C-alpha cells in the first residue's frame, strides 16, 4: 500500500478506527471526522503515534447534512487529492424499542440512510471531479433482506445499497470506484446489547478485511466473505417461510 490520502467519516466507530489504524501504519495522511471531540482526539493521537503521515480532525455530527460540504472542503484543503473516502457512521437501534415510535424510526433512517446518501452524493462529485479515487461505504448484511429483528435498520441500509449501485455505474466512467462493504455482526459498542454468537468477529479483523476490499477495489464485499453465502441462502428463503422465522444475526 503506498501512502494514501484518506477521509474517514464516523472515525470513532470501532470498525472505522481499526481501518484508520491500518492506513496510519502504512503511512497514510488522514482526515478524521466524528461528532465527539474528546473521542476523536483520542483516536487521532493513537494514529499519530502509530503512523508517519498527517492526521487532521474535524468535529461534525455527520447526520447534520448541512455541514457535510464543509467537511469535504476541509478534507480537500488538508489532503489535496482524496484517494479514499470511507463512510462509516451509523446506529443500530433496538427494533422492538422503536417499532411503535415514528420519531425513532425516522431518526434511524436519518442516521443510516438519508445522511449517508447526502454525503455519498457530495463526495461523488468531489471524486468525479478529480477523476479517480475510491468511495467506500459500510452497509450491512441486514440490508440484503428485511428481517423481523432489525428491519428499520436493514431497510435504511438497503436504501444505501441501491444508491451505491447506481452511483458505481455513474462514477465508473470517471475511474472512481464505489466499494460497498457488508459486515456481518462485529463485536463493537454498537452491538453491545446483542448476544454474541460464533459468527461475530472483532473490529480489528473487520478493519483488516475492509482495507483489503478497498485496496482491491471490490464492488461489493461481505465482511467476512462467508456472509455472501449465508445471505444468498437467506435470500432464497420464500417469504411465506421467512415471515414465520425470526432470524437474529446481523
Amino acid at each position, binding site marked *: 500500500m503506498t501512502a494514501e490520502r484518506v477521509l474517514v467519516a464516523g472515525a470513532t466507530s470501532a470498525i472505522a478506527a481499526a481501518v484508520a489504524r491500518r492506513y496510519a501504519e502504512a503511512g497514510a495522511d488522514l482526515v478524521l471526522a466524528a461528532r465527539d471531540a*474528546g*473521542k476523536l482526539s*483520542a*483516536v487521532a*493521537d*493513537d494514529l499519530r*503515534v*502509530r503512523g508517519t503521515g498527517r492526521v487532521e480532525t474535524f468535529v461534525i455530527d455527520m447526520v447534520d447534512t448541512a455541514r457535510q460540504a464543509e467537511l469535504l472542503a476541509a478534507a480537500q484543503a488538508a489532503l489535496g487529492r482524496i484517494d479514499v473516502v470511507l463512510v462509516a457512521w451509523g446506529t443500530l437501534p433496538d427494533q422492538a424499542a422503536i417499532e411503535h415510535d415514528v420519531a425513532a424510526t425516522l431518526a434511524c433512517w436519518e442516521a443510516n440512510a438519508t445522511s449517508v446518501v447526502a454525503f455519498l452524493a457530495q463526495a461523488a462529485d468531489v471524486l468525479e471531479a478529480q477523476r479517480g479515487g475510491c468511495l467506500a461505504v459500510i452497509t450491512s448484511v441486514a440490508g440484503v433482506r428485511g428481517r423481523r429483528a432489525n428491519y428499520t435498520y436493514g431497510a435504511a441500509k438497503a436504501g444505501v445499497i441501491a444508491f451505491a449501485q447506481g452511483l458505481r455505474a455513474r462514477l465508473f466512467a470517471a475511474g472512481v470506484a464505489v466499494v460497498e462493504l457488508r459486515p456481518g455482526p462485529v463485536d463493537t*459498542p454498537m452491538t*453491545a446489547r446483542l448476544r454474541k454468537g460464533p459468527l461475530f468477529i472483532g473490529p480489528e479483523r473487520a478493519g483488516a478485511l475492509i482495507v483489503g476490499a478497498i485496496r482491491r477495489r471490490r464492488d461489493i464485499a461481505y465482511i467476512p466473505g462467508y456472509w455472501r453465502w449465508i445471505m444468498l441462502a437467506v435470500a432464497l428463503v420464500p417469504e411465506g417461510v421467512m415471515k414465520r422465522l425470526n432470524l437474529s444475526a446481523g
Partner: protein
Amino acid sequence: MSGYESWGRFPRATPRAVVPIRWRDEPPSLADLPGPLLPYARGRSYGDSCLNDGGTVLDVNGLARFIAFDADRGLLRAEAGVGFDAILNLIVPRGWFLPVTPGTKFVSIGGAIANDVHGKNHHRAGTFGCHVTQLELLRSDGTRLVCSPTANAELFQATIGGLGLTGVILWAEIALKPIPGPQIELRASRFGRLEDFFALSEAADADDEYTAGWIDGMSRGRRLGRGVFLGGNHARGDGTWRGAHPSRLRLPMDVPEWVLNPLSIRVFNEVQYAVLGRKSARAFAGYESFFYPLDVVHNWNRAYGKRGFLQYQCVVPFDDGLAVVREILDRIAASRSAYFVVGKVFGSIRSPGMLSFPRRGVTLAVDIPNRGPEIFALLDAIDALVIEARGAVYPAKDARMSPRSFEAFYPQWAAFARHVDPAFSSSFWRRVTAGLGASDGVPAKAQATAPSAPASVAGAGGPSAATAAAGALGGGA
C-alpha cells in the same frame, strides 16, 4: 460470561456483570455499578488475582490507544489496555525496548503495573514499576488522579503491584530503553549442581543484562538442581529489522490430562538438559524467541487440560537461600509433577510498589498441573519453608495461599489496604484477607466489599496480568 478466566484456568469464576471501559475521557460511572469491581485486560495472571467471582469486571481491553511517543527521549504514554505486543511493534523498529518484560508479550501495560512484573533483567533494571513515570487512576467516587513518584505518591506506590485494587489505571507513561537492534546475543551453559547455578548467576550479573536458569524439576540426589543457565544481551543491529513473528498456533482443545505425566515430563527435562546447554554455546536470536518462546502457541495453558494448572513462584533471600532452594527443589522433584522450573537471582533494586513481590534473593517458578489435594499440601509445605526463610510468594501466580501465609509474606498489607478503593476487590483479595483485618486496622469498608463466599472459586477481573521471566525460559526447548 465466558472468556474471563485466569491463565492457569484455576479457579473458575463467574462475574455478575462485565462493563467495558472504552474511552479514557468518558469512563462509566463506577459508583452506579454493582460491586465489587475489578479491572481485567488480558487475563494473564495465573491464579485468582484477576478474577472477581460474583462481582463486576471492568474490561479495559478497549483502552488500547497510544497517546504520545517521544522517540527522542524514549517516553511512551499509552492507555492501560495497550499490549506489550503492540508496544514492541511500535518501538523496536525505532530503536527502543521495554525496560522490563515478563515471559509473554500478551500482557497489557495496566496489568504489568498492577502486578509489578519482572523479567530476566531484574538484577539490572528492577521491576516494571521502576520505569513508570506517571499514570492516571480512576477511583470509584469518580475522581481521576494523575499519580507519579512526586504526585499522589502513596497512591502511586500502592497502585504499582496493587493487583488492580486501588482503582482503574486509565493510562500510564513509561521510560523505554534504547537498544542497538532487535537481536539478542545469548549464551547457554549447563550446570550440574545448584551451587553452580548461583556461581554462574553471580558471574553473569556483571556481564549479562538478562539472566535466568532452567532447572530440571525431576532430578534428585546428586543431580538435584542441575539445569541450563541462559544469559543474554542486546546485540548490535544487523541492519534488518525483523517484524514480529506471527503467533498463530492455537491448541484446538484441552489436551487430555494423561499427556503430561511423570514419564513425559521426565523425558522433556532430560531432552532439555541434553540439548539446550550441550556446551557453553553462543548464539543470536530474535528478541521474540529469546523473551517469548511460549507465545508461539497462543493458548499453551490448555496443554494442562481442563482442570488447569497451578503456577508457584517464590523468592527467598540469599542468607540461607541455598539450603531452602535445595529443600524446595527436592520436594518438587519428589512430587514428580513439575514441568517447568525456572530460577533467577533477583537484584537489590527496590520497586516503588508497596505490595511488590520481587526482592533480593533467589526466585523459583514452577508450573504444576492441578492434580488435586496432594499438590495443595505440597505447596502449603513449601509456603512454610518460604515463610521461615522470610521470603514471599507471587500473588499474580497464586490461587491457593492461606491468609496467614499472605500476612507473613506481605506484613505491609494493612498499610496497602488503606489505599484499596472501597468499591474494588478481587477473588484473590477476598481469599487472602479472609479472617485477617479487623484487628489490623483495615478500613471497615474494605471488609464490607468482601462477599460471603470467599471459599474457592473466583470471578474474572484484575488487570491483565503478567507473568515472570518464568515461562519464557521454560519454553526454550
